[in-house]
């Protein structure tokens, strides 16, 4: 369903809105249960605070993780397929330029956000494509850890089982770092958040 895509004031197609919020839910479950799994055998010298984890104990966390992974992967595939086939990626993320993203960041640091409803600025384009890639890396490294025998080619590609754990960790860290900025901007910049639910740009006051 591409419901409102061709209505005049719709800046986010229905398909993108639905998959975005399903994805947000799936990512939260994956990250919070993943932190609890991490705590069972920490890779680095720290643990995540228990109260910020999901699942209660290792088996519970794994059950959440291995349930939500289907939601994340299937919803992600649907989003990718839609984005590629409908031209949404081309329209919204192209042209993409690191240089432009850098300029936008400088502008933003001087207190002016280069944000117009219905059009992603250069920094957003780079970050959105980047976060999509980070989620893909998280899923692939997760598969490499989950099935180091059946999918041993993939595990080898990640540098082996132990290296795949490290890749998986840093994919998570990248996603979390993105989310801090992404959510921070979504709730602080006026008129951005509501259209991600309604699809419609708010009338300029």
């Amino acid at each position, binding site marked *: 369903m591409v419901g409102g895509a061709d209505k005049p004031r719709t800046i986010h197609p229905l398909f993108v809105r639905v998959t975005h919020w399903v994805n947000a839910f799936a990512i939260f479950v994956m990250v919070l249960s993943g932190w609890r799994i991490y705590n*069972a055998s920490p890779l680095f010298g720290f643990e995540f605070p228990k109260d910020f984890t999901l699942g209660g104990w290792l088996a519970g966390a794994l059950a959440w993780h291995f*349930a939500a992974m289907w939601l994340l992967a299937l919803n992600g595939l649907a989003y990718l397929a839609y984005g590629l086939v409908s031209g949404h990626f081309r329209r919204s993320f192209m042209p993409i330029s690191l240089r432009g993203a850098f300029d936008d960041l400088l502008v933003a640091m001087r207190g002016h956000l280069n944000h117009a409803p219905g059009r992603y600025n250069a920094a957003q384009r780079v970050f959105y494509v980047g976060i999509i890639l980070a989620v893909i890396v998280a899923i692939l490294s997760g598969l490499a850890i989950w099935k180091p*025998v059946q999918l041993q080619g993939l595990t080898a590609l990640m540098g082996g089982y*132990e290296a795949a754990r490290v890749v998986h960790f840093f994919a998570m860290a990248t996603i979390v770092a993105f989310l801090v900025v992404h959510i921070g901007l979504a709730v602080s910049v006026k008129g951005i958040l509501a259209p991600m639910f309604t699809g419609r740009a708010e009338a300029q006051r």
Partner: protein
Amino acid sequence: MKPPRSERLSAFRPQIARLERRLFLKQGLSLGALSLLSGCTLKDDDAVDRLLLTMSRFNDRVQAALFDPAKLAPTYSEADVTTPFPFNAYYEEQDIPVIDGENYRLQVSGLIADKRPWSLGDLRALPQSSQITRLVCVEGWSAIGKWRGVAFRHFLERIGADLTARYVGFRCADKYYSSIDMPSALHPQTLLALDFTEAKYGYPLRLRLPTKLGFKNPKFIGEIFVTNDYPGGYWEDKGYNWFSGS
């Protein structure tokens, strides 16, 4: 416990995790395995727990479909073996069962033709093979070890097991129990291991299969049975995914 030689933190993490598990074990007994799953409610018959369990059963089927009976786990060289190998069980290292090898008899039961018990001598008279493979723990750490013993497929054939049965179950001297699917039992790298570095890793008999997580490799095996009735397992009954394939 001896400090591990390896600098990797993961090498001694299991001890901490084990302490945690013991705490949860207590809760598990009072609340039931179901309510432990989601960790968000304490009601027994919670909808979230049922959903998570349903997904876990679904994942069992997906993993069974993904399992390639001919695909071999990567093998390593002697130099890659992790020393010391991490000890891991639901109890502390000093609580391992001590078994007298002379009088030991492996019991075999269920859907098999020959129910005679096996002495260690009988098992050693069967063809032996060894493997150096990576053991991956459900906790996330992994270690490379060497195991030597009887190809499990050969043993199952020798006892006249119904190879079309669904499960092979294990009952152990440490009151641990587990079960695996028949295709994994018949995998060429599934070993009934008699030789490994130290008794604490399961003397006199343990199962070693690199196609499943560590907790699916029962130690101190006392009885092996073949069945079509889902036998569950010690951790599996507490909420770990049953198939837990690698």
